[in-house]
């Protein structure tokens, strides 16, 4: 299989959530050179946070666009990330969870950034279950 150029990704969060999400994903799938994390400290100035995100974007960019995954819509990490929005170049998806990071980690084909953003958004939503909903039917079968 020919080497493909990957879409870069920056996880941006409050506190250390971004670093830990990246570290969890790396434990599952191995080193992820095209993904990095920016943790915005509780007392960081907007300018310094902006600078960190800007540096992170340049670091992971392979020329195919960069996806910013932020922790919560309306929060500071998202609001600062939004300053970098540029359609098709830098897209932002909020509410990051581990399945979303794993989705970006595994890129087997070169798809456009906007499509990747859509797929990651859907993946994040679809990966949420109430485990009980899955466990109860099976338990009932067992008891029957």
């Amino acid at each position: 299989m020919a080497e493909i150029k990957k879409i870069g990704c920056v996880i941006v969060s409050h506190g250390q959530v971004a670093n830990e999400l990246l570290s969890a994903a790396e434990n599952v799938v191995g080193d992820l050179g095209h993904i990095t994390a920016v943790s915005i400290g509780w007392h960081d100035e907007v300018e310094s946070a902006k600078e960190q995100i800007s540096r992170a974007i340049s670091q992971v960019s392979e020329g195919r666009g960069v996806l910013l995954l932020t922790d919560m819509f309306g929060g500071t990490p998202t609001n600062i990330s939004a300053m970098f929005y540029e359609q098709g170049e830098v897209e932002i998806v909020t509410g990051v969870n581990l399945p979303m990071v794993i989705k970006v980690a595994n890129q087997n084909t070169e798809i456009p950034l906007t499509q990747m953003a859509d797929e990651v958004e859907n993946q994040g939503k679809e990966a949420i279950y109430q485990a009980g909903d899955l466990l109860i039917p099976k338990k009932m079968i067992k008891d029957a």
Partner: protein
Amino acid sequence: MLESNVKIVNQLGLHARAAAQLVKLSSKFLSSVKIQRADSNIVADAKSILSILTLAASRGTTINITISGTDEEQALEEIEKLINAGFGEL
């Protein structure tokens, strides 16, 4: 097309890191690799971690592997070996 039933034997079941190993191995082959729980009709693509995780296959679950393509024989042999070895966790 080849089919086979194997039992998940490692304590943690088909969890994230085990799924990642299965994806890494399956992706080496040109054949399509599908896995399904013997007790349900949910089918997963063995080349996608997140798809495999939706099976929630714990220890003792029997899964049905269906492989189709030019290198199906070797793919089945290696995949069976990985699962039977408990993903190296035994």
